[in-house]
């Protein structure tokens, strides 16, 4: 009986060990998921009992704030003073859905949380309050982008190449966040359904085109092809490619025609401003699949850009191996066609990398996070994300991009007193639709760049070009940013920039 007593005691003690194991499972392994469960009252209590923190723009404009309601369950609701101008990046916070955009990215700071104690009683019973998130975004530049894009689908990204700070990021389609913050769940559900429904071009308003939609980058990719030559095979820079209207691609009977059909060729220095397709296709074949693929990746292709923003998608360049049996594919890829796809954010980072002496700074929205008493909780520390080239190599590319503006494909777009370096892109898409995705990437001033921009306008007419569609938008953004950085008013710098979204309809032509 004595032995059996020991066994029974052991069994009961083991039951307690099982309880301990299950407690560890719940409190450690499953806790993160349970803490976020929609059924968990703590989630809603934290977000409704106290006001959320404010989101503030670089110039001090309030982009998001919580205001009191007379509803007992939800004593606060969110308002977004700039509405659809910043909806794409700020997102929204509603008691009935998850957070989106920067509201989601910085939710931990924006949700009321225990504050550091200032007295013994606060140490034992911490007070709850939310932090204020200050962004690098300039609402004036958002407005310039919105006006210049004239309601057409597309995306504009404006970076400070020296720091990686996002000065503006605007996409169409956009949406009004107001109905989504309603305390009536039916209004929220209807608005949510609307913004998650894709428009005629397949873009749901909730998905930010600038970070979530990829397009063939077209000739803007030639900056990367040029970098591959400068960094990996400088000898090819002096090789003169034949001046022809088309070239025959290897291992196939395909003919690659220059856009527009006129003959074009020469050295890289001649071909980049004129954007020669046949010559760059041959250059890409000379550089080889390994170097092309590695150079694309050195600019951030096939990686997730470390932007402090949810749901960013990577851009795509095919692997070197995939070209082994597809040399025509390498030729097309070298001019940013076929399967190459990029986000507006990625191409802005390409421009920023060349502008910043070959170093791509980590892109970011965050400037500072401050606690309710004004102490800085977190200050964004600038860092280099990628270094596709050194500064000497970058200096070889800058003049070529300046020549694009002086006498190349972007000639006549910018006022002559602006020292801009740029590259246009016009990617033919759709075999039957016959559309173009029109691009321009640019930075200015070319000698000491303080702004880098990418604009993509997809689903444009077959006859449209990057210069004609994206060019005017980039021009307005360059002027606006340089004025802002010089401390001048952003609006009114140019009479040709539209002052409202509808006035820009003429730029379609």
């Amino acid at each position, binding site marked *: 009986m004595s032995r059996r007593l020991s066994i029974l*005691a052991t069994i*009961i003690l083991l*039951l*307690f060990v099982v309880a301990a194991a299950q407690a*560890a499972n719940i409190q450690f392994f499953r806790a993160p998921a*349970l803490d976020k469960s929609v059924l968990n009252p703590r989630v809603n209590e934290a977000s409704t009992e106290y006001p959320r923190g404010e989101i503030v723009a670089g110039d001090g404009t309030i982009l998001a704030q919580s205001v009191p309601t007379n509803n007992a369950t939800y004593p606060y609701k969110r308002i977004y003073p700039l509405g659809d101008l910043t909806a794409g990046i700020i997102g929204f916070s509603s008691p009935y859905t998850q957070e989106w955009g920067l509201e989601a990215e910085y939710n931990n700071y924006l949700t009321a949380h225990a504050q550091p104690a200032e007295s013994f009683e606060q140490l034992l019973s911490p007070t709850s309050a939310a932090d204020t998130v200050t962004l690098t975004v300039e609402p004036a530049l958002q407005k310039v982008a919105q006006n210049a894009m004239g309601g057409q689908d597309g995306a504009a990204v404006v970076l400070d190449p020296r720091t990686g700070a996002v000065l503006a990021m605007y996409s169409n389609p956009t949406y009004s966040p107001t109905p989504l913050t309603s305390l009536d769940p039916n209004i929220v559900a209807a608005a949510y359904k609307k913004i998650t429904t894709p428009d005629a071009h397949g873009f749901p308003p909730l998905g930010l085109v600038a970070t979530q939609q990829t397009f063939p980058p077209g000739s803007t990719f030639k900056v990367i092809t040029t970098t591959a030559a400068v960094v990996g095979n400088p000898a090819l820079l002096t090789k003169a490619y034949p001046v022809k209207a088309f070239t025959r691609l290897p291992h196939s009977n395909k003919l690659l025609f220059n856009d527009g059909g006129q003959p074009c060729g020469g050295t890289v220095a001649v071909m980049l401003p004129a954007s020669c397709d046949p010559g760059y296709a041959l250059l890409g074949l000379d550089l080889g699949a390994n170097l092309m693929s590695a150079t694309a990746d050195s600019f951030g292709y096939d990686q997730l850009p470390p932007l402090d923003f949810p749901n960013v998608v990577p851009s795509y360049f095919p692997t070197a191996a995939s070209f082994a049996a597809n040399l025509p594919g390498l030729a097309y890829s070298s001019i940013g066609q076929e399967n190459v796809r990029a986000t507006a954010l990625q191409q802005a980072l390409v421009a920023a990398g060349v502008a910043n002496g070959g170093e791509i700074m980590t892109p970011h929205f965050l400037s500072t996070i401050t606690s309710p008493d004004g102490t800085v909780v977190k200050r964004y520390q600038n860092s280099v994300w990628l270094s596709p080239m050194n500064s000497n190599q970058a200096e070889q590319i800058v003049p070529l991009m300046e020549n694009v503006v002086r006498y190349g494909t972007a000639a006549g777009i910018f006022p002559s007193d602006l020292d801009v370096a740029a590259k246009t892109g016009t990617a033919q898409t759709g075999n039957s639709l016959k559309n173009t995705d029109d691009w321009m990437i640019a930075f200015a001033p070319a000698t000491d760049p303080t702004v880098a921009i990418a604009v993509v306008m997809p689903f444009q007419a077959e006859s449209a070009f990057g210069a004609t569609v994206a060019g005017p938008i980039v021009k307005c953004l360059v002027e606006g940013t340089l004025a802002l950085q010089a401390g001048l008013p952003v609006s009114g710098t140019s009479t040709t920039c539209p002052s409202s979204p509808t006035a820009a309809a003429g730029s379609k032509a």
Partner: protein
Amino acid sequence: MAKSMTSAPFGADQQAVTKASRSTELGLMVLAWIITTAFYVLASLGSQGHMPPRIWLFLTSIVVISLGMHFAIRHYAPHASQVLLPIATLLNGIGYVEIARWNPSNASYQALWFLLSALAVVATLKFVRHVRDLDRYRYLTLAAAIILMLLPLVPHFGENINGARLWVVVGPVSFQPIELAKILLAFFFASYFASNRQLLSTPTQRIGPKLIVPPRTLFPILVAWGFSLAILGAENDIGFALLLFALFISLLWVTTGLKTYVILGMGLFVGGAFVAANYFTQVHSRVAFWLDPWSAAHWAISDQLGLGWFSLAAGGITGTGLGLGQSGNIPFITSDMIFAAVGEELGFLGIILVLCLFMAFVGEGFHIAQRAHSDFVRLAATALTATMGFQAFFIMAGVLRILPFTGITLPFMAYGGSSLIANYIIVAILLRISDENANKIRGGQVLDVALT
């Protein structure tokens, strides 16, 4: 005790032991008071932002009542185990802090129950001088247990609370007689098993090629057990049915060592559970909520288990801190779900503390049982300790969703007078048995006991 004092060779030793012997208990009690008071203060500061208003009354009450028990043990059972009372006091204290946090009016009652429990401890020690004497009242204990269990079924007297008819209401006070009945049943089982040990463990009746125990031997105990379960079935309480079942099977196996009983018992249990889950609505819904508390249909009816898990998750490893948890919205947070409240405010570490205290209690209980010198006393100690261990595990397992939620009380911690008093009586009986053990070892009565 008087006899042992006359034993010359051990007399001198024993005097010294008697004087110094209970300082360990007192030291551990002081530790329990300090921890409980610190928790009480922290919980008040955390939730209210100020010191608890009646902190001195709180501290004085707990110290005076505990010291009362301590000195009663010094007087009535000087050689008893020194760890049981401090463990009970600390578990009681942690539970009280959480009760005071979520239901202050319950807390005042719980303080009263603590006082009555202390009186019950003193009374038990005073009147039960030899646990082996209780063997004489075998069928009386059974009858008393059955009457107690029938009480809630008496019209106008019993009351349904949370679907189970377990309460007896007298004036402003409601009482769960089953808590006391479980002690009486433990004694009945111990008594019956001890006296029929030989018969129960020797298969003599032939059925085909196999020898089995004569059914006649098992008849009374099966009737008693079946009757208990039938009453509980009528009262719709699966918690105590499960507890009695576990106790019965454990004791039967400890007594006889026949695995057949365990296998048979498990078979009966699985069959019974299957039938109950399909045909009794309360059991059926408990099982359904246990398997999936999250579905919208279940959540709308009872969010208790899910909210308990959210509390545990919010607690994490180190807890939210006392007074800072948000378990207040959980139904029955101070009784059935108190383990979740502790898990939130004290975290996994707090749960480990509570588990360790129960493990120490159960370990000490079995230690006392091992040293008992008669089958009856040994089985009684085993039964009481196993009851405590199983009861604690079943309710924790319910909150943790290891088992379906049974809604029995967490010993010492949960709010409830009957539960608290009954568990303190178990402490008193174990103290008495351990005191007897010590005396017998010292007093040279081993032969005497072995002959009985």
